[in-house]
């Protein structure tokens, strides 16, 4: 851990230390009276950061990374108790600061960027006002000079037409522009440290690349950056040092190349293995999954009949909507595809590309304006609801957020019972047996069945959603961003589960995601959507390795990559000197 300073010293330039945290503990008191208890959220964390460097704190939800970051600006949250042996930030002993001193420090010496600028900037005010506020709070300039500076700052973070944008509200800006505006408000007074908590999580991959580039330029100018992220590949492009947090403690910390390419700790290795990408294609992402494969010697998932008949076939789908301003927007524009039996068709695109609307049409929940969908060769759209009803069960769906699709007052068992056909399972005992069978298929325990959706974890809820989708014995399951809200290790389990189910039951998946890695890992064939059009379609192999359309190339170029296959990763001890030069 002391390698940080030694390394910079040997590199020739001794950089000013901006952050020195030793043995940081944060706990929250919860409950009252006899129920009072202490949640120990951050345990013995050590962090160091020098000017012009980026320290990444990586962990899954609940690992304590955000609380750590907020403690660094003195806002850990209500009822928090903070203890540390050492807490130095930008030359200040921050452990003993009063509220007034903190307020002088925040915004001037430390900038903080939260995720999702739609809600992290005041949604009722123009973004320019928010930037001016940061200046005003520290007594910078007068009203007019602040307005001018706000425009200048917007320009400096790469916002085109900054005068116009300064007068617009966050909801009038695109995701990338509003994240830039948020960054502009955080760096208005040129702070020495910028803490960015998941700054790109809500963004499309091309926009994410732009924001990471912006942060990279700030780093070059000498700003110290603390980057909080759940995404190891995002971290890889920017971080000089990586700290991996699990359950409130740092399990591994060191130079980025070591941690990402020669992880020592089991948890870091599991995290890295769980990232779906081209290298993981055809192999399970979790340890359990790999163990199962060897135990039952199942054939690799890529082997599949290429000439299987199409289950679902979409021809020239078009869908447009009229906005409030009277303008007609074509959301899906001449999209055709085929989904063959037992295969996975991945639909990938950024937000607003029309992929979810395409999914809705495929589910026949939305009639296309033109074109049609065929299910097993027979019309699936353009027919009456009654004519569709008998085949409804053939196509089911799993959404990103299953919680909102469950009745919160029903327990898991009732949710599944509701989805089981009374014609196929007339007896009560038969249905009960079917519930157990479904739960078993998706890896839910019997005790989970009595629980309500709110009492289940994110992964368990998604398993329940999958079980419900399986209940009517469908041919096709539409997975609309089904793993996008999950932590990477949980996502890995769910992806492995989906792969197993496909092999067992011969299901076809229409797999919709914005995540190129997930799409690459899961799909046999891929459809790339942009602005409602299918710009490229082909086998996953072709689309990812030999992209023909410029947009596909742009997408792939924007994707932050770790660069090495899991097999190529080695423990640091065995690392070759060229890669792990400073491991000693």
């Amino acid at each position, binding site marked *: 851990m002391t390698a940080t300073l030694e390394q910079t010293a040997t590199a020739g330039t001794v950089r000013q230390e901006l952050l020195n945290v030793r043995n940081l503990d944060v706990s929250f008191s919860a409950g*009252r009276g006899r129920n009072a208890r202490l949640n120990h959220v951050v345990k013995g964390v050590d962090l160091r950061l020098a000017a012009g460097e980026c320290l990444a704190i990586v962990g899954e939800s609940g690992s304590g990374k955000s609380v750590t970051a907020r403690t660094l*600006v003195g*806002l850990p949250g209500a009822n928090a108790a903070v203890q540390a042996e050492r807490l130095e930030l930008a030359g200040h002993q921050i452990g003993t600061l009063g*509220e007034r001193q903190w*307020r*002088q*420090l*925040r*915004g*001037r010496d*430390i*900038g*903080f960027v*939260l*995720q*999702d600028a739609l*809600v*992290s*900037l*005041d*949604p*009722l005010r123009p973004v320019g006002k*928010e930037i001016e*506020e*940061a200046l005003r*709070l*520290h007594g910078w300039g007068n009203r007019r000079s602040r307005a001018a500076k706000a425009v200048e700052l917007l320009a400096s973070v790469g916002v085109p037409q900054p005068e116009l944008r300064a007068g617009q*509200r966050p*909801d009038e800006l695109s995701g990338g522009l509003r994240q830039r505006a*948020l960054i502009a*408000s*955080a760096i*208005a007074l040129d702070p020495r440290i910028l803490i960015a908590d998941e700054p790109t999580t809500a963004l499309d991959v091309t926009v994410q690349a732009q924001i990471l580039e912006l942060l990279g330029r700030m780093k070059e100018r000498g700003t110290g950056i603390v980057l909080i992220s759940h995404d190891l590949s995002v971290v890889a492009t920017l971080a000089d040092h990586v700290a991996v947090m699990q359950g409130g403690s740092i399990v591994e910390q060191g130079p980025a190349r070591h941690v990402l390419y020669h992880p020592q700790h089991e948890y870091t290795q599991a995290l890295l293995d769980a990232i779906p990408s081209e290298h993981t294609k055809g192999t399970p992402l979790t340890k359990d999954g790999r163990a199962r494969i060897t135990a039952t010697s199942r054939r690799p998932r890529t082997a599949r009949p290429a000439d299987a008949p199409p289950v679902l076939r979409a021809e020239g789908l078009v869908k447009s909507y009229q906005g*409030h*301003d*009277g*303008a*007609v927007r074509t959301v899906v524009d001449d999209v055709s595809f085929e989904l063959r039996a037992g295969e996975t068709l991945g639909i990938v695109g950024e937000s607003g590309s029309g992929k979810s609307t395409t999914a809705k049409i495929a589910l026949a929940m939305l009639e296309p304006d033109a074109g049609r969908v065929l299910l097993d060769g027979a019309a699936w759209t353009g027919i009456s609801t009654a004519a569709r009803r008998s085949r409804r069960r053939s196509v089911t769906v799993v959404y990103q957020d299953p919680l909102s699709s469950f009745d919160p007052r029903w327990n898991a068992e009732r949710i599944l019972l509701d989805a089981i056909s009374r014609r196929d399972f007339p007896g009560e005992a038969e249905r009960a047996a079917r519930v157990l069978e479904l739960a078993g298929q998706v890896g839910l325990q019997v005790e989970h069945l009595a629980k309500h959706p709110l009492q289940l974890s994110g992964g368990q809820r998604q398993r329940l959603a999958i079980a419900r989708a399986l209940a009517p014995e469908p041919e096709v399951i539409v997975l609309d961003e089904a793993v996008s809200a999950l932590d990477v290790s949980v996502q890995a389990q769910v992806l492995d589960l989906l792969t197993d189910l496909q092999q067992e039951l011969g299901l076809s998946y229409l797999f919709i995601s914005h995540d190129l890695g997930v799409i690459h890992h899961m799909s046999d064939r891929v459809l790339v959507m942009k602005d409602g059009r299918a710009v490229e379609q082909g086998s996953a192999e072709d689309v990812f390795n030999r992209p023909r359309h410029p947009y596909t190339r742009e997408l792939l170029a924007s994707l932050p990559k770790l660069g090495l296959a899991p097999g190529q990763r080695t423990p640091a001890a065995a690392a070759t000197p060229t890669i792990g030069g400073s491991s000693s």
Partner: protein
Amino acid sequence: MSTFNNVTGLLPKGARNDGAGSTAGGGPGGAASQPGRRPPRPNNLVTSPGLRRAAGRLLTAVGVVWAAATFTFLIQALLPGDRATLLLNQLAGQVQQRTAAELAPINAKYGFDDPLIVQYFRFLADLATGNLGVSYQLHKPVTEVIGDQVGPTIGLTFASLLVAWLISAVVIVGTARRSRAVSSVASGLEAVAAGLPQYWLGVILLVVFALNLGWFPVVGGSGLAGLVLPALTLGIPLAGFLGQVTRTEFEKGMDQPFALSARMRGMGDTGVRLRHVLRHSVLPGVTLSGWALGSLFSGAVIAESIFSRPGLGKVLVTAVNSRDLPVVCGIVILIAAIYVLANLLVDIAYTLIDPRLKNS
């Protein structure tokens, strides 16, 4: 002329799509067209969503007033008791049966003999021209009776609303999302305030602050000092309601990331509450204010009688007691109109507070 052409020429929905073309060919005098700005927006008045919505509102408003007027007309016409007899008795100040000969001129003058439907349309026509009839008791036009007394009541209504907002804003900003004890005590006080009967509260205020302490005049004049206690009488219970609906929203706002963002750039807790969160929390309160404005106007009678203030309240009470129906009806219609106006104001306030609503 050109506006007319614009309207008819662009009405078909398909024509709206090519905004650029219609702007270019929009004729010389299109007052509504703004060349160069936002070409896709249709440049005629009929299809503009804002105006269409405003027209809809206006229609609803007229409908509400019409319904109130019809209701009061029916009450006048169908209540037991002959109206001409009633009128004569009021004039003479005595109660007795009247002969047909006595009633005939009255019936002829007020048209009580005409079929109900004829009377109804005459009533509506009068209403449309602002004629609410003549008071049975005062023999003055109802508009005049109301006009003389409406000023103090409107003043009291708005003063009460202002007091209610001030109290609830101070309490919310001061107590919401503080320690559990502070927050729940304040919330409890709000509930109590909301439940206070105005009549009882008014008497207590009068006794304590006017009679015992002598801080305020016992008989409320038209001055500002005389307005304080009546406004508190009506404002405190309303502040309780406002506080209850605002508190939840305020606490939600305090949890939003933008509040944290503002702290992170060096703003203090109070600054965040006042400059960011308060604005987010007032929308439900504003909705409630639309209802409250109408309710305060009709509730003003309580404060006016306790504090012996001039105002519509006293007129209404006298009119009800003496069955001076035209006056009663005039006031009912006025209150309906005020409700409608208040709700229009609420809608305007909505888009000022949350500009995002303009587009939805």
